[in-house]
């Protein structure tokens, strides 16, 4: 008993002692004592020595009120000699902060004077880190939950190992310079300038919005991205967009490390705060926010004429070269395929001149959703001559890939969207809406006669990414292709379907009354899948593949004959979730009203 009591009480004493030691003997006290001792040795006068004698270790603190929220900086508790030039050659934490002309420090009469005085700016304004922490682990922000670890100095344990060494370096601190020095091309922040240029060069601005810089709407707003994320997350997101969001449609840009670094620093500087502005000024600036000007590019000539694929004139050749250069520079291949470069997201442009014409391309450049309502291509703000040059260049691409056999044809032309296996899951299927047809779906494929498939191939599908291959393939090739698809993927011959009793023309005339009745029926029967807005995004649509049609895709709806609409509605679409509504008591008159309703908001734009 006594032995146990003795051991227990000694244990308590030891624990107590350890806690006491931890709470009352700090590393920073040692640093401060070392500084006082050294400074005393260096002291030139007796008064100086006396002043040092009077000092004892204590928590040093700078309160910074001018920059954003009030900051409490206790960094000088350890880095006590940061502002003592005599300690220039010492090791951290006693090393003096170096003077630098790039930071605005000035040398007057052989004595340096700081532009950013510690008493006004503190330390964390520039360096980040946690100003209140008195232990290295907390002060430098190594704590996983501290949002702003010391920029360029600290790599957190949780960061991806292969990125860690890249995230260290003084350059990252520029991100904080830009909190106040927001002007473009500020001399002391060259990396930010480079990052900003890349943001435009690589067309990031087409998708992303940054307050006061760009207005993209497709991708997340980056105005405050630097406040939300650490540099490792930013690096990862730039290099591997899918790393953090599996459904991200951002292309991989294959940038060099230096380029990524510049972009990351530029993004880290986007914190939504400008310490130079008051909130009132910010508010005013937002009101006056203008759309970004088109990126200025030295323009030569925009002829506007379609360049023949034969020998181009010298003048046209230079325009073509400019178009080629633009396409290469503007990162089109980050999404599109062109020659041996492939972004894996958007259609192949390698023989675009065969598929589309000049006016279509110009229209598509200016408003990508003009002909393809669900296209995810961003609207870039290039100049008219640039668009013209790019159009001219694309029109000159008229070399079709070799298509000797039907299998070759499928592999070279169709597989990119419909997939090697014909399952509609080619590399770009995720980004296309409407999605490519699943050619293995026998129920759908075998219910459609050859003629219908041939027509879809030859003329394309309006409002979808399916181009009119009739301009590339002759009829025999198309027929062979359909046979090949049926044989290889569908594995079932076309069924001869019983003739459906559907009218060629809508028997109900288009009247406001009919449209109103059609709307009522639509609301009752169709909204579950096609949605209240008829955009194909009804509540059930998420579970259905292929997805319900977007009935606001006017190019698609216009291309549908009354006969096909009646057929699809009354008898359903085989291989999809569309049921035969005739079984649920819909009459031809009802369908006529619904068709009128659908046509009423799909009139061609005037």
């Amino acid at each position, binding site marked *: 008993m006594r032995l146990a009591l*003795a051991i227990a009480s000694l244990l308590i004493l030891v624990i*107590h002692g350890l806690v006491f030691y931890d709470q*009352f003997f700090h590393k920073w006290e040692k640093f401060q004592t070392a500084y006082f001792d050294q400074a005393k040795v260096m002291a030139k006068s007796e008064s100086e020595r006396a002043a040092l004698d009077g000092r004892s270790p204590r928590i*040093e603190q700078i309160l910074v009120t001018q920059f954003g929220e009030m900051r409490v900086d206790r960094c000088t508790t350890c880095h006590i*000699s940061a502002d003592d030039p005599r300690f220039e050659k010492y090791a951290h934490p006693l090393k003096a902060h170096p003077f630098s002309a790039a930071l605005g420090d000035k040398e007057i009469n052989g004595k340096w*004077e700081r532009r950013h005085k510690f008493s006004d700016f503190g330390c964390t304004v520039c360096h980040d880190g946690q100003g209140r922490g008195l232990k290295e682990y907390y002060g430098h922000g190594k704590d996983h939950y501290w949002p702003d670890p010391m920029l360029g100095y600290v790599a957190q344990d949780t960061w991806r190992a292969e990125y860690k060494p890249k995230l260290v370096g003084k350059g990252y601190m520029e991100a904080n310079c830009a909190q106040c020095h927001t002007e473009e091309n500020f001399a002391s922040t060259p990396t930010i300038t480079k990052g900003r240029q890349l943001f435009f060069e690589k067309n990031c601005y087409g998708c992303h919005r940054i307050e006061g810089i760009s207005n993209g709407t497709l991708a997340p707003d980056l105005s405050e991205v630097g406040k939300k994320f650490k540099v490792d997350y930013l690096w990862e997101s730039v290099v591997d967009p899918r790393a953090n969001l599996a459904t991200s449609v951002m292309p991989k840009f294959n940038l060099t490390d230096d380029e990524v670094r510049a972009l990351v620093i530029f993004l880290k500087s986007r914190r939504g705060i400008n310490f130079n502005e008051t909130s009132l000024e910010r508010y005013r600036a937002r009101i006056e926010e203008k759309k970004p000007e088109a990126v200025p590019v030295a323009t030569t000539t925009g002829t506007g004429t379609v360049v023949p694929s034969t020998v181009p004139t010298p003048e046209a050749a230079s325009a073509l070269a400019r178009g080629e250069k633009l396409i290469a520079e503007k990162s089109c291949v980050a999404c599109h395929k062109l020659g041996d470069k492939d972004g894996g997201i958007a259609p192949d442009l390698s023989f675009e001149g065969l598929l589309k014409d000049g006016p279509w391309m110009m229209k598509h450049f200016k408003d990508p959703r003009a002909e393809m309502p669900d296209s995810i291509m961003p609207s870039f703000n290039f100049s008219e001559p640039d668009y013209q040059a790019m159009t001219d260049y694309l029109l000159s691409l008229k070399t079709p890939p070799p298509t000797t056999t039907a299998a070759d044809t499928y592999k070279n032309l169709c597989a990119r969207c419909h997939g090697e296996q014909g399952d509609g899951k080619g590399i770009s299927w995720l980004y296309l809406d409407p999605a490519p047809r699943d050619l293995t779906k026998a129920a759908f494929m075998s219910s459609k006669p050859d003629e219908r498939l041939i027509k879809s191939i030859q003329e394309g599908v309006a409002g979808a990414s399916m181009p009119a291959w009739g301009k590339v393939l002759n009829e025999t090739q198309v027929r062979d292709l359909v046979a090949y698809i049926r044989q290889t993927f569908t594995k079932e011959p076309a069924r001869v379907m019983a003739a459906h009793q559907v009218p060629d023309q809508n028997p109900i005339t288009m009247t406001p009354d009919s449209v109103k009745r059609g709307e009522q029926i639509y609301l009752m029967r169709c909204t579950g899948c096609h949605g209240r807005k008829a955009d194909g995004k009804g509540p059930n649509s998420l579970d259905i593949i292929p997805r319900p049609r977007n009935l606001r895709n006017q190019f698609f709806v216009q291309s549908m004959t009354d006969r096909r609409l009646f057929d699809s509605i009354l008898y359903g679409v085989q291989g999809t979730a569309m049921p035969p509504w005739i079984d649920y008591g819909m009459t031809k008159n009802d369908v006529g009203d619904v068709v009128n309703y659908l046509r009423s908001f799909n009139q061609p734009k005037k």
Partner: protein
Amino acid sequence: MPMGKNIISTKPTTTEDTNRRKFLLWLSSLGLFGSAVISVVSNLVFIKPRATYGQPNRFSVGKPDDYPPGTRIALDNHRICIVREENKIAAVSTTCTHLGCIVGLSETGFACPCHGSRFDQDGNVTGGPAPKPLAWYKINLAPNGELEVDKDAEINAGTYLNL
């Protein structure tokens, strides 16, 4: 066999045993008493916070050149007045010793606008309810060439720093 034999040990108590018991008792007491002492010391030290969130008491007020000879400049945010005479410089508190108002500079020295206390150039009371003269704070020339005032260190009135 009688019951008692089992309960009460018949083994005689040796000096060795007594020593061991005493030693253990001594160890236990050391442990408990030591912990108690550490607790008391900790509590006494903990009563005073090591850091507060106010403005720090030692701060930089800029270079001596910012204060040409003959100036008296009140720094209201720090509640001090920098006095420079030729090559001598000092920091005088502008917190009134009466109720803590900020005293203003006047022709003859300092004056409290609220309760009428008056002080001469050196901070000595010349009138009003103030019970004590204004404090003088230690002022040093820091290695970076700036003046550093330490409000934690009061010095005798009239003690200047020679530049």
